[in-house]
Protein backbone atom coordinates (compact mmCIF):
# COMPACT_ATOMS: atom_id res chain seq x y z
CA UNK A 1 0.00 0.00 0.00
CA UNK A 2 1.31 3.40 -0.95
CA UNK A 3 1.49 5.55 2.18
CA UNK A 4 3.29 8.51 0.63
CA UNK A 5 3.69 9.75 -2.93
CA UNK A 6 3.67 12.92 -4.92
CA UNK A 7 0.15 14.43 -4.84
CA UNK A 8 -1.81 14.65 -8.08
CA UNK A 9 -2.08 18.46 -7.90
CA UNK A 10 1.72 18.68 -8.08
CA UNK A 11 3.02 18.13 -11.60
CA UNK A 12 5.71 15.48 -11.95
CA UNK A 13 8.58 17.73 -13.05
CA UNK A 14 11.81 18.66 -11.27
CA UNK A 15 11.48 21.87 -9.24
CA UNK A 16 13.96 24.66 -9.99
CA UNK A 17 14.58 25.50 -6.33
CA UNK A 18 18.01 25.23 -4.70
CA UNK A 19 18.91 22.05 -2.76
CA UNK A 20 17.21 22.05 0.63
CA UNK A 21 14.95 25.00 -0.10
CA UNK A 22 11.66 24.50 1.72
CA UNK A 23 9.55 25.96 -1.10
CA UNK A 24 9.25 22.39 -2.39
CA UNK A 25 7.79 21.16 0.90
CA UNK A 26 5.23 23.97 0.95
CA UNK A 27 4.28 23.36 -2.70
CA UNK A 28 3.65 19.75 -1.81
CA UNK A 29 1.53 20.63 1.22
CA UNK A 30 -0.65 22.94 -0.88
CA UNK A 31 -1.02 20.20 -3.51
CA UNK A 32 -1.85 17.57 -0.88
CA UNK A 33 -4.56 19.83 0.52
CA UNK A 34 -5.99 20.44 -2.96
CA UNK A 35 -6.09 16.66 -3.48
CA UNK A 36 -7.66 15.93 -0.12
CA UNK A 37 -10.37 18.58 -0.56
CA UNK A 38 -11.03 17.39 -4.11
CA UNK A 39 -10.82 20.91 -5.54
CA UNK A 40 -8.13 20.66 -8.22
CA UNK A 41 -10.63 21.11 -11.04
CA UNK A 42 -11.95 24.39 -9.67
CA UNK A 43 -8.77 25.84 -8.21
CA UNK A 44 -6.89 28.74 -9.76
CA UNK A 45 -3.49 29.58 -8.32
CA UNK A 46 -1.70 32.91 -8.58
CA UNK A 47 2.09 32.86 -8.73
CA UNK A 48 4.13 35.84 -7.53
CA UNK A 49 7.36 37.42 -8.69
CA UNK A 50 10.28 36.01 -6.77
CA UNK A 51 11.73 32.52 -6.35
CA UNK A 52 8.33 30.91 -6.80
CA UNK A 53 7.59 32.88 -9.98
CA UNK A 54 7.46 29.61 -11.91
CA UNK A 55 5.02 27.95 -9.50
CA UNK A 56 2.63 27.94 -12.47
CA UNK A 57 4.69 25.10 -13.91
CA UNK A 58 4.30 22.96 -10.81
CA UNK A 59 0.61 22.98 -9.93
CA UNK A 60 -1.82 20.92 -11.99
CA UNK A 61 -4.65 23.41 -11.50
CA UNK A 62 -5.10 26.49 -13.68
CA UNK A 63 -2.44 29.08 -12.91
CA UNK A 64 -1.88 32.80 -13.41
CA UNK A 65 1.39 34.66 -13.12
CA UNK A 66 0.84 38.09 -11.53
CA UNK A 67 2.91 41.26 -11.54
CA UNK A 68 5.16 41.74 -8.50
CA UNK A 69 3.02 42.12 -5.39
CA UNK A 70 -0.29 42.19 -7.21
CA UNK A 71 -1.39 38.61 -6.60
CA UNK A 72 -4.12 39.53 -4.06
CA UNK A 73 -5.63 42.00 -6.55
CA UNK A 74 -5.48 39.43 -9.36
CA UNK A 75 -6.96 36.84 -7.00
CA UNK A 76 -9.75 39.28 -6.16
CA UNK A 77 -10.59 39.53 -9.86
CA UNK A 78 -10.51 35.77 -10.43
CA UNK A 79 -12.60 35.08 -7.35
CA UNK A 80 -15.19 37.71 -8.17
CA UNK A 81 -15.41 36.51 -11.76
CA UNK A 82 -17.16 33.38 -10.44
CA UNK A 83 -17.37 33.31 -6.63
CA UNK A 84 -19.38 30.09 -6.55
CA UNK A 85 -17.07 28.02 -8.70
CA UNK A 86 -13.56 29.37 -8.26
CA UNK A 87 -11.23 28.40 -5.43
CA UNK A 88 -8.37 30.90 -5.58
CA UNK A 89 -5.04 30.91 -3.81
CA UNK A 90 -2.00 33.11 -4.02
CA UNK A 91 1.51 31.90 -3.28
CA UNK A 92 3.75 34.84 -2.40
CA UNK A 93 7.13 35.55 -0.91
CA UNK A 94 8.01 38.23 1.63
CA UNK A 95 9.24 40.82 -0.88
CA UNK A 96 6.16 40.29 -3.01
CA UNK A 97 3.58 40.28 -0.21
CA UNK A 98 5.09 42.47 2.50
CA UNK A 99 6.99 45.08 0.48
CA UNK A 100 5.84 45.94 -3.02
CA UNK A 101 2.43 44.31 -2.57
CA UNK A 102 1.64 45.46 0.95
CA UNK A 103 -1.29 47.63 -0.10
CA UNK A 104 -2.87 44.77 -2.04
CA UNK A 105 -2.32 42.42 0.92
CA UNK A 106 -3.79 44.75 3.55
CA UNK A 107 -6.81 45.69 1.47
CA UNK A 108 -7.63 42.12 0.44
CA UNK A 109 -7.48 41.26 4.16
CA UNK A 110 -9.56 44.30 5.13
CA UNK A 111 -12.21 43.33 2.55
CA UNK A 112 -12.16 39.78 3.92
CA UNK A 113 -11.74 38.73 0.31
CA UNK A 114 -12.67 35.06 0.16
CA UNK A 115 -9.25 33.81 -0.96
CA UNK A 116 -6.40 31.78 0.47
CA UNK A 117 -2.94 33.32 0.77
CA UNK A 118 0.17 31.22 1.27
CA UNK A 119 2.88 33.60 2.44
CA UNK A 120 6.47 32.38 2.37
CA UNK A 121 8.65 34.30 4.81
CA UNK A 122 12.33 33.46 4.46
CA UNK A 123 13.58 36.91 5.42
CA UNK A 124 15.34 37.53 2.12
CA UNK A 125 14.92 38.23 -1.60
CA UNK A 126 16.02 34.89 -2.99
CA UNK A 127 15.51 35.15 -6.75
CA UNK A 128 17.56 38.32 -7.19
CA UNK A 129 20.44 36.95 -5.13
CA UNK A 130 19.85 37.65 -1.46
CA UNK A 131 18.92 41.25 -0.78
CA UNK A 132 17.37 42.63 2.41
CA UNK A 133 13.65 41.84 2.65
CA UNK A 134 10.90 43.61 4.61
CA UNK A 135 11.16 40.62 6.96
CA UNK A 136 14.97 40.43 7.25
CA UNK A 137 15.93 40.28 10.92
CA UNK A 138 17.73 43.11 12.74
CA UNK A 139 21.43 42.57 12.19
CA UNK A 140 20.87 40.07 9.36
CA UNK A 141 23.60 40.18 6.76
CA UNK A 142 22.33 40.31 3.19
CA UNK A 143 23.70 41.58 -0.11
CA UNK A 144 22.15 45.01 0.51
CA UNK A 145 22.77 45.02 4.26
CA UNK A 146 26.35 43.78 4.17
CA UNK A 147 27.09 45.10 7.68
CA UNK A 148 23.89 43.62 9.06
CA UNK A 149 20.42 45.18 8.97
CA UNK A 150 20.82 48.47 10.81
CA UNK A 151 17.39 49.29 12.23
CA UNK A 152 18.39 52.94 12.78
CA UNK A 153 19.01 53.28 9.07
CA UNK A 154 16.37 51.08 7.45
CA UNK A 155 13.88 50.29 10.15
CA UNK A 156 12.42 47.10 11.49
CA UNK A 157 11.05 43.92 9.97
CA UNK A 158 7.32 43.70 9.37
CA UNK A 159 5.39 41.10 11.31
CA UNK A 160 2.61 40.41 8.85
CA UNK A 161 0.34 38.17 10.95
CA UNK A 162 0.52 40.50 13.95
CA UNK A 163 -0.17 43.53 11.78
CA UNK A 164 -3.11 42.01 9.88
CA UNK A 165 -4.61 40.66 13.11
CA UNK A 166 -5.41 44.26 14.07
CA UNK A 167 -7.82 44.46 11.15
CA UNK A 168 -11.42 43.49 11.55
CA UNK A 169 -11.56 41.99 8.07
CA UNK A 170 -9.57 38.78 7.92
CA UNK A 171 -11.00 35.41 8.91
CA UNK A 172 -7.89 33.46 9.70
CA UNK A 173 -4.19 34.16 10.19
CA UNK A 174 -1.65 31.60 11.30
CA UNK A 175 2.13 31.42 11.30
CA UNK A 176 3.74 28.02 10.87
CA UNK A 177 7.06 26.60 9.75
CA UNK A 178 8.27 23.49 7.94
CA UNK A 179 11.65 22.80 9.55
CA UNK A 180 10.64 19.46 11.10
CA UNK A 181 8.19 16.64 10.47
CA UNK A 182 6.12 17.81 13.43
CA UNK A 183 6.01 21.39 12.18
CA UNK A 184 5.17 20.21 8.67
CA UNK A 185 2.11 18.41 10.04
CA UNK A 186 0.97 21.58 11.78
CA UNK A 187 1.64 23.63 8.63
CA UNK A 188 -0.49 21.28 6.57
CA UNK A 189 -3.38 21.56 9.00
CA UNK A 190 -3.19 25.35 8.76
CA UNK A 191 -3.10 25.31 4.97
CA UNK A 192 -6.03 22.92 4.85
CA UNK A 193 -8.02 25.17 7.15
CA UNK A 194 -7.17 28.18 4.98
CA UNK A 195 -8.65 26.41 1.94
CA UNK A 196 -11.61 24.97 3.86
CA UNK A 197 -12.45 28.48 5.07
CA UNK A 198 -12.71 29.60 1.47
CA UNK A 199 -14.91 26.65 0.55
CA UNK A 200 -17.12 27.54 3.51
CA UNK A 201 -17.27 31.17 2.37
CA UNK A 202 -15.61 32.45 5.54
CA UNK A 203 -13.16 34.79 3.86
CA UNK A 204 -9.54 35.89 3.85
CA UNK A 205 -7.23 33.23 5.20
CA UNK A 206 -3.48 33.68 5.29
CA UNK A 207 -0.88 31.15 6.35
CA UNK A 208 2.58 32.58 6.90
CA UNK A 209 5.17 29.84 6.49
CA UNK A 210 8.59 30.53 7.97
CA UNK A 211 10.83 29.10 5.31
CA UNK A 212 14.54 28.63 4.76
CA UNK A 213 16.92 29.97 2.13
CA UNK A 214 20.13 28.01 2.57
CA UNK A 215 21.75 29.54 -0.51
CA UNK A 216 21.30 33.18 0.40
CA UNK A 217 21.59 32.67 4.13
CA UNK A 218 24.94 31.08 3.32
CA UNK A 219 24.29 27.85 5.23
CA UNK A 220 23.80 24.16 4.71
CA UNK A 221 20.14 23.12 4.46
CA UNK A 222 20.48 21.55 7.92
CA UNK A 223 21.94 24.70 9.49
CA UNK A 224 19.20 26.76 7.82
CA UNK A 225 16.48 24.67 9.47
CA UNK A 226 18.20 25.20 12.83
CA UNK A 227 18.48 28.95 12.14
CA UNK A 228 14.69 28.99 11.83
CA UNK A 229 14.45 27.64 15.39
CA UNK A 230 17.23 29.82 16.79
CA UNK A 231 16.60 33.17 15.05
CA UNK A 232 13.40 33.29 13.07
CA UNK A 233 10.86 31.83 15.48
CA UNK A 234 11.91 33.99 18.44
CA UNK A 235 11.21 37.04 16.25
CA UNK A 236 8.24 35.52 14.43
CA UNK A 237 6.43 33.38 17.01
CA UNK A 238 4.38 30.54 15.57
CA UNK A 239 0.68 30.23 16.23
CA UNK A 240 -2.82 31.36 15.34
CA UNK A 241 -3.12 35.15 15.18
CA UNK A 242 -6.74 35.31 14.20
CA UNK A 243 -9.51 32.78 13.85
CA UNK A 244 -12.75 34.67 13.76
CA UNK A 245 -15.00 31.62 13.58
CA UNK A 246 -13.26 30.07 16.58
CA UNK A 247 -13.52 33.38 18.46
CA UNK A 248 -17.25 33.53 17.75
CA UNK A 249 -17.75 29.96 18.95
CA UNK A 250 -15.83 30.72 22.13
CA UNK A 251 -18.08 33.68 22.93
Amino acid at each position, binding site marked *: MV*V*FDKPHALIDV*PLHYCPGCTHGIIHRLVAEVIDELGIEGKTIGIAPVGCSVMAYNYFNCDMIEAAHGRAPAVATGVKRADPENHIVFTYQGDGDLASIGMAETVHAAARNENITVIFINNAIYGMTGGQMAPTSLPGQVTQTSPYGRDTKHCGFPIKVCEMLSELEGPEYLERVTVNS*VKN*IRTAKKAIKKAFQNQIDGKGFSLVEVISSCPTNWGMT*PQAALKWIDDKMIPYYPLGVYKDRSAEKEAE
Partner: protein
Amino acid sequence: MAKLTFKTDNCKGCGLCVDACPKKLLRLAQDKINKKGHHPAEITDQEQCVGCASCAMMCPDCIIKVER
Protein backbone atom coordinates in the same frame (compact mmCIF):
# COMPACT_ATOMS: atom_id res chain seq x y z
CA MET B 1 8.64 -4.23 5.95
CA ALA B 2 8.24 -0.95 4.14
CA LYS B 3 9.57 -0.04 0.74
CA LEU B 4 11.10 3.26 -0.32
CA THR B 5 11.43 4.22 -3.98
CA PHE B 6 13.64 7.18 -4.89
CA LYS B 7 13.27 9.25 -8.02
CA THR B 8 17.04 9.43 -7.95
CA ASP B 9 17.55 11.79 -10.87
CA ASN B 10 15.47 14.52 -9.19
CA CYS B 11 17.44 14.32 -5.93
CA LYS B 12 19.44 17.45 -5.13
CA GLY B 13 21.46 15.82 -2.36
CA CYS B 14 20.30 18.25 0.33
CA GLY B 15 20.30 15.51 2.93
CA LEU B 16 17.16 16.65 4.80
CA CYS B 17 15.76 13.11 4.49
CA VAL B 18 18.92 11.69 6.04
CA ASP B 19 18.41 13.79 9.17
CA ALA B 20 14.69 13.07 9.27
CA CYS B 21 14.95 9.29 9.48
CA PRO B 22 14.41 8.28 13.10
CA LYS B 23 16.33 5.04 12.51
CA LYS B 24 19.19 6.68 10.61
CA LEU B 25 18.72 4.39 7.62
CA LEU B 26 19.40 6.94 4.86
CA ARG B 27 22.60 8.38 3.45
CA LEU B 28 23.80 10.34 0.47
CA ALA B 29 25.52 7.86 -1.82
CA GLN B 30 29.08 9.20 -2.02
CA ASP B 31 29.91 6.69 -4.75
CA LYS B 32 27.07 7.78 -7.05
CA ILE B 33 26.37 10.95 -9.01
CA ASN B 34 22.96 11.59 -10.59
CA LYS B 35 22.10 13.53 -13.76
CA LYS B 36 22.06 16.81 -11.83
CA GLY B 37 25.53 16.11 -10.42
CA HIS B 38 24.42 15.40 -6.86
CA HIS B 39 25.12 12.46 -4.59
CA PRO B 40 21.57 11.07 -4.38
CA ALA B 41 19.86 9.81 -1.25
CA GLU B 42 19.54 6.08 -0.76
CA ILE B 43 18.46 3.66 1.93
CA THR B 44 21.09 1.53 3.60
CA ASP B 45 18.88 -1.14 5.10
CA GLN B 46 15.43 -1.56 3.58
CA GLU B 47 14.63 -4.34 6.04
CA GLN B 48 14.77 -1.94 8.98
CA CYS B 49 12.47 0.70 7.45
CA VAL B 50 9.06 0.98 9.11
CA GLY B 51 7.62 3.33 6.48
CA CYS B 52 7.04 6.30 8.78
CA ALA B 53 7.51 8.59 5.74
CA SER B 54 9.43 11.20 7.74
CA CYS B 55 12.06 11.26 4.99
CA ALA B 56 9.41 11.79 2.32
CA MET B 57 7.76 14.56 4.29
CA MET B 58 11.02 16.46 4.65
CA CYS B 59 12.04 16.00 1.01
CA PRO B 60 11.62 19.37 -0.76
CA ASP B 61 11.62 17.65 -4.14
CA CYS B 62 9.08 14.96 -3.44
CA ILE B 63 11.28 12.16 -4.79
CA ILE B 64 10.47 9.49 -2.20
CA LYS B 65 7.56 7.11 -2.53
CA VAL B 66 6.72 5.07 0.56
CA GLU B 67 4.89 1.76 0.53
CA ARG B 68 4.00 -0.50 3.44
